[in-house]
């Protein structure tokens, strides 16, 4: 906590949040200011703490599955995938190919949905109101696919341990293809609005620079790391769920500033469309997998991480040979990325804090768990 009692006469302590709309939830940032210049920050988190890791210890493996959706609620499908993969590794089973391809399609759709929400709100923070309406319009199409597939739009509970619960509905492939065809021109449209917009460029270029060494020091992952020029994507580095079969690139940028993180995420949306197109074309027939009636893994521990839209999402599960996990530890990407906030805003202006929080793409449900 910032020491508010012994202030230098020129310093000002300002509370930002937890109700501030630009903190994307309930993040409280205590800013130490000298005029407009930020001297330092303190983040206060925990306003959305629900004790998800503790809840896991009192639920069976299947019962905990819906709770992971509520951590990063804009990318619930990715959270579910990570958890299911972790428990499957603990049980030493693998989902059948049909289930794996379906998982890839839905996770990539969710990546697009997450990036769309980020783009809309980030642009809204900067002052461009138009993109948010367009982004939510396209996101709606993805949510419709989720709703048709598993019956929920946001907290989907789409995957089960060992495969899937729901068979693909009729017209799933067509709907995904139609979305891909519709979506690519829309990305160009967003770029038309923002990429060369003078206000956008001058607000983002050179703001919140985090170079590759600093990223590695803080353990930052995801688009923030890739914008600094590090070509690191867990989908390529340690493929899971059959990602090695798909042909896609890892978009990177050089400067590690807010503008680069924007362009990396825009490229990622295009790459996700590429993956979806390849995956939809080769959905194999066969079983979708069956959840074992009793999930009782042998004593042991496992760490599985996946590339969630925001970075590396890891699950560390300790089993003591009972139906309930002994301990579940989640490594949420937002929580780790948020630590770099102080480094990024130091020396910047107050208005840049909003841009930097937006570009980190944090979800407070995941930070606080």
């Amino acid at each position, binding site marked *: 906590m910032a020491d508010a009692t012994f202030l230098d006469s020129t310093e000002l302590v300002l509370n930002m949040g937890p109700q501030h709309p630009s903190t994307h939830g309930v993040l409280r940032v205590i800013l130490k200011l000298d005029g407009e210049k930020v001297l330092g920050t303190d983040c206060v988190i925990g306003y959305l703490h629900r004790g998800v890791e503790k809840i896991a210890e009192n639920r069976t493996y*299947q*019962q905990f*599955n*819906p709770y992971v959706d509520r951590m990063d609620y804009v990318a619930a499908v990715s959270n579910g995938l990570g958890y299911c993969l972790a428990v499957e590794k603990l049980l030493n089973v693998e989902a059948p190919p049909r289930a794996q391809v379906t998982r890839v399609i839905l996770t990539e759709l969710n990546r697009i949905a997450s990036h769309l929400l980020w783009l809309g709100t980030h642009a809204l923070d900067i002052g461009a109101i138009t993109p948010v309406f367009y982004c939510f319009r396209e996101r*709606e199409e993805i949510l419709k696919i989720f709703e048709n597939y*598993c*019956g*929920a739009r946001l*907290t989907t509970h789409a995957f089960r341990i060992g495969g899937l619960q729901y068979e693909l509905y009729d017209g799933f492939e067509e709907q995904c293809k139609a979305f891909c065809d519709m979506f690519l021109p829309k990305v160009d449209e967003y770029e038309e609005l923002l990429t060369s917009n003078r206000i956008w460029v001058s607000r983002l270029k050179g703001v919140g620079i985090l170079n590759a060494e600093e990223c590695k020091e803080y353990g930052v992952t995801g688009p923030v790391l890739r914008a600094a020029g590090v070509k690191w994507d867990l989908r390529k580095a340690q493929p899971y769920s059959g990602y090695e079969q798909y042909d896609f690139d890892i978009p990177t940028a050089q400067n590690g500033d807010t503008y680069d993180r924007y362009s990396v995420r825009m490229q990622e949306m295009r790459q996700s469309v590429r993956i979806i197109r390849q995956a939809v074309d080769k959905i194999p027939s066969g079983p979708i997998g069956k959840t074992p009636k009793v999930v009782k893994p042998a004593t042991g521990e496992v760490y599985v991480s996946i590339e969630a839209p925001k970075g590396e999402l890891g699950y560390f599960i300790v089993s003591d040979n009972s139906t309930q996990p002994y301990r579940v530890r989640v490594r949420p990407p937002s929580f780790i990325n948020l630590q770099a906030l102080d480094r990024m805003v130091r020396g910047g202006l107050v208005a840049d804090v909003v841009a930097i929080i937006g570009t980190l793409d944090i979800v407070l449900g995941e930070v606080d768990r």
Partner: protein
Amino acid sequence: MKKFFRAVFFVDLIQGLWVTFRNQNPKYIYTEQYPAERPKVAERYRGAPRLNINPENGETLCIACNLCALACPENLIVVTSERNEATRRKELTTFTYDTSRCMFCGLCEDACPVDALELTQDFELASYTREGAIWDRQMLEEGPKPTQYKC
């Protein structure tokens, strides 16, 4: 020089405005007039729970096996039953479902061996009291009756 002309003639601004102008097309309007125009939810939508009854004889399909109550992560289902001495079968007496704590994960529905408990397409679950969110057997069998609005 090129950059200068772009700045003088507001090329980027006009480019952006052209995008917003294109999107004025009425076919891109997605607003739903909710109470009058009801949304079409998906067939698999996980909404209000329902306890199905056999349409032929009006008896409940539930066999009071308690599997839904065991599957529920929030322990919000309470099933009571008594043994019918004549037929030697368990018969359902009460079934309580607390929708205020339900997160509509669908695990109870998956657990049901006879498709008696089902999450339906009804999504209007608002209630004036907290007690109103706790549904008994009769409420579960009849389903919610939301007010219908006409415009």
